[in-house]
């Protein structure tokens, strides 16, 4: 059996970037086609996960292990469980769509843009595969570099401010994680995540570590109040950058909670679960109101991302209240699954929303809501997709946006009806900010003469939006396959929550 599949998934896009770069600015089409081929090859390879991965087994699978830095006990060790597989598939799926989405949109140095995208894809897959904490950290940090370049080079007018803010903000967060990891290494003399998970730690140690991890991942998710980098980064990022950022990079924050905070510091995480739950609810309500008054479409969707990611952190941490408070393991699984489904769904929906905004931006070169109005008159196909994704963003049943929120709300009610009360507020405020935007952008008569000249989406854009739409509907109509894929891993994670370290 071919047992280097994970390495292949990581290095294929990264090495694939080399010929793309070599194609140079003189042969942009060669660069485009090579990167598309690499992205498709990566996606096809990732489908191999589905056949090789045994979803019934909660253990890490497809393991690879090589000594990397012997003196520090750092290993290049990879392995995936159901949650990682789902996120890897999301990454490779989105990977194709951003290449296609950027096809003729990026005219300056497309080879460099495409190469950065491919490298970024490989590094993100690395994050989801790493089972060694330092390896995880390396991928986690390295990921910032291509994104830094994508925003800084192909971004909007304030790209320098945005890209610096993005970099320093997230780097600031991860420094704390590095300190935490060094402390853990000094205790355990290894960076192996499984060993760290069983390392006995006092409450004081756990508390320090918990907050170190919290800062790192809260910035990434992002959680209130460390979310302000996201709107700026999105506004300045090129469409593809926004799509990857929203669809995959934010998920790494949620993923980090699962891999670090929960297994390594379970008691501290339980003690401070209320902090995260509180901040998640603030994200839903407070950010919802802020999204309502945004004038810039990208900012609006960025804020909406913060609110939706609130369900991820809520679903993860509500599990503590359910396991340790009421010993209701099934409800905890429901909440945790909800959080996972929400991550995948948000990947599709936010990616699609940013792609839609990109489609409009390419035609009118503005993201201001007030410059639009009546777009449906000239772009009916686009309007179909836009309304579909807006509905998914509002959590309409039948779309993927509903599934995770539904599960998290149901699970929250089991812990405390008031948590469900505030979480369910998204039904109102989420629909309000999303459809208020749709009203001003899509419906109405044309007032701006430039809107009248907008052409409906072409085949390439149809492909991108159609692929997102298929994913959004498939997950919304039948989420069980995804849930089954992650079920064993989530069960094991939930069982671990009950293990006290002190």
């Amino acid at each position: 059996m071919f047992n280097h599949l994970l390495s292949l998934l990581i290095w294929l896009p990264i090495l694939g970037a080399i010929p793309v770069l070599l194609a140079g600015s003189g042969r942009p089409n060669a660069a485009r086609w090579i990167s598309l081929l690499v992205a498709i090859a990566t996606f096809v390879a990732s489908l191999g996960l589905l056949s090789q991965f045994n979803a019934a087994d909660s253990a890490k699978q497809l393991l690879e292990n090589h000594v990397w830095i012997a003196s520090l006990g750092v290993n290049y060790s990879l392995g995936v469980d159901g949650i990682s597989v789902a996120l890897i598939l999301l990454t490779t799926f989105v990977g194709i769509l951003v290449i296609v989405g950027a096809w003729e949109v990026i005219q300056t140095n497309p080879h460099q843009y495409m190469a950065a995208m491919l490298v970024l894809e490989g590094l993100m897959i690395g994050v989801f595969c790493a089972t060694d904490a330092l390896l995880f950290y390396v991928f986690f940090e390295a990921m910032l570099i291509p994104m830094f370049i994508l925003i800084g080079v192909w971004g909007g007018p304030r790209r320098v401010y945005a890209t610096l803010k993005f970099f320093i903000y997230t780097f600031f967060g991860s420094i704390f994680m590095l300190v935490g990891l060094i402390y853990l290494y000094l205790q355990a003399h290894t960076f192996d995540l499984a060993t760290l998970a069983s390392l006995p730690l006092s409450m004081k140690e756990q508390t320090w570590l918990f907050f170190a991890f919290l800062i790192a991942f809260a910035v990434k998710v992002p959680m209130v109040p460390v979310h302000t980098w996201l709107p700026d980064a999105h506004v300045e990022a090129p469409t593809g950058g926004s799509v990857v950022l929203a669809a995959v990079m934010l998920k790494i924050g949620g993923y980090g909670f699962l891999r670090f905070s929960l297994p390594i510091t379970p008691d501290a995480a339980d003690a401070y679960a209320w902090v995260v739950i509180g901040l998640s609810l603030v994200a839903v309500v407070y950010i919802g109101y802020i999204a309502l008054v945004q004038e810039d479409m990208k900012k609006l969707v960025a804020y909406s991302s913060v609110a939706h990611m609130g369900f991820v952190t809520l679903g993860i941490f509500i599990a503590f209240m359910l396991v340790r408070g009421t010993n209701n393991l099934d409800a905890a699984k429901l909440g945790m699954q909800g959080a996972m489904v929400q991550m995948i769904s948000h990947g599709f929906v936010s990616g699609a929303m940013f792609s839609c905004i990109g489609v409009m931006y390419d035609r009118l070169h503005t993201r201001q809501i007030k410059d639009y109005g009546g777009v449906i008159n000239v772009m009916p196909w686009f309007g179909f997709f836009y309304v579909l994704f807006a509905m998914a963003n509002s959590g309409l049943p039948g779309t993927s946006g509903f599934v995770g929120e539904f599960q998290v709300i149901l699970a929250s009610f089991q812990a405390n009806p008031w948590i469900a009360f505030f979480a369910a507020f998204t039904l109102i405020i989420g629909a309000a900010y999303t459809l208020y935007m749709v009203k001003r952008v899509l419906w109405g008569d044309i007032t701006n003469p430039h809107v009248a000249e907008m052409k409906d989406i072409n085949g390439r854009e149809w492909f991108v939006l159609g692929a997102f739409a298929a994913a959004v509907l498939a997950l919304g109509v039948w989420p069980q396959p995804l849930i089954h894929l992650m079920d064993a891993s989530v069960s094991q994670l939930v069982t671990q929550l009950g293990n006290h370290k002190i």
Partner: protein
Amino acid sequence: MELSTSILLTIALAPLVGCVLAGFFGRFIGRAGAHTATILGVAVACGLSFYVLYQITAGGAPVYNQNIYTWFDIGHYSAHVGFMIDRLTAMMMVVVTFVSLLVHVYTIGYMADDPGYQRFFSYISLFTFSMLMLVMSNNFMQLFFGWEAVGLVSYLLIGFWYKRPTAIFANLKAFLVNRVGDFGFLLGIAGVLYFLNTLDYATAFAAASTLVGKTLQITQNTHWDAATVICICLFVGAMGKSAQVPLHVWLPDSMEGPTPISALIHAATMVTAGIFMVARMSPIFELSETALSFVMIIGATGALFTGLIGIVQNDIKRVVAYSTLSQLGYMTVALGVSAYAGAVFHLMTHAFFKALLFLGAGSVIIAMHHEQDMRYMGGLRKYMPITWITMWIGSLALCGVPFFAGFYSKDAIIEAVGESHRLGASYAYFCVMAGAFVTALYTFRQMYLTFHGKERFVVVHDHGHGHGHGHDDYAHAGHDAHDEHHHVSHKDDHGHHEPGIMHDTPKESPWVVTLPLILLAIPSIIVGALAVKPMLFGEWFGSAIHVNEANNVLGELGKEFHDWASAGLHGFTQLPFFLVLAAFAIQTYIYLFNPSVADRIKSALKPIYNVLNHKYWFDAVYYIVFARGGMALGRVLWKGGDAAVIDGVLINGSASLVDRIAGGVRRLQSGYLYHYAFAMILGLILLLGGYWLVGQ
């Protein structure tokens, strides 16, 4: 014979296929292709629904309850897509598909020259699919899916004419108000899962009695009864969907949509989903007297007070819309007094006669070239006799004149409320009784203004002449136009025209329009007499509806009931009929003989008129508090929270702090040797001095 899954799947999916064909391939299959495909789909669903109803009632088919596929399965929690077909469901399926089929046919005529023809057919087929998923569901998850999906289609259809600012305001408003209801509904579902550990109807209802005595902790010392919390939360959902006070504000505005959907969605089917849902949940609602009282009082308030607004409306569709609000109130009252069968029975008769009234109004609107203001109508009976007669049938049914369908259902509700001893029942009784009078007032006014009296429009055959204004025969027509601030806004976008000026003589609508009217007029007459005995007083619903013996007001009424004929005759001697008669006399006098009285009454009762004309200021207050208030709050949080505190102080503040410190520290790096030498000496002194101090 047992019902087969494939038949049920065909019923649900046939309209969806029609929707996809008309929606995605509308350009290829053309207009005729689109309406053929969708009508075929709905006709298949309708025919099979009749078959299912027959099998369930006469064919001896047992209740069907099966899952089709697993939606999610986590621990002992699971959600499925599946169907439960009992008598309640079968009846709803027939009502939904039958009205939908007629509306499809009607649309051929009504939307004949609309550029969005295919899109419209696609939407109404999608609606039929969603509504069927709602009523056929066997669990709460799918119910919620159907619930929200019909909301989506309603949103799309209210905003069908998306160029009109009023339409896209109304559809946003409708969606958001419904979402307020869904917010409660979802919490209710979460409560069901919490206490009953299942989302499946049958399992939940079987376990419903375990709710007794359970409480939900609200604060440290407050515990609320579990059944009450669940029922009120679920009912909040019904308040949104079925437009109950105070969440009723979206329904009148939904008249921005084309008339066929006003008939189908905003009168006959979707808005009754809340009524259906509560009847479906009767095993749970029966556990909470408090919740039922709440339901009853909300319903009674709506029945009377929204009906009153109908009296002052001049838009023909808005009169019917307020009438719908009032009738939904009646159904809700019936739910509140545990007369679930009465509510569902009224739901059915109302579906027929209200769809008829809306489609009739639409027929008038076609004849008047999309003029909806009744002040510019009058005397239409001689131009459009079929519309005129069928609308009279619908009106008499609505007023509850004995032997018409509405009589049996509405009278039963009034009497059931009279029988009930639930808290607030006397208030409810007053409301529904007075409501009967109010119903007759606005209904006869509408009929007279539209079809009788003198014509208040002129026909000008040549185009382009500015003819000033039409002749103001009726003084009040001219006056009304000034204080009716929104009447201009809800005209269809079929070209601007001056009110009261017509370019052609009004004529009867084509057969695709009149045929549905006739087909709806028939059940509006007979369905009440046919169904009253089994549905209301018999065991027709079987196990589908559960009523505690102590609450069984319909059972009490049934003891005095013999047959439809004697009940009808008895109806002529009862108070509701006298109220209708009184209203008939008043309106006949005013609108046929002495129109100036209407004006005099209006000025004499100016304060009351103002209250009604402003719809009790619900819209104005909501707009200021929720729409403006929400935006203001958002702006404050954004500028104050995100921009000022987080970014201003914390982020950029720390950045500039670093900048300043760095700026200060940079001065140390001056490059002058003597600075460094001085620093070294200072360091040495401090270091040694430090050791010396510590050493002491």
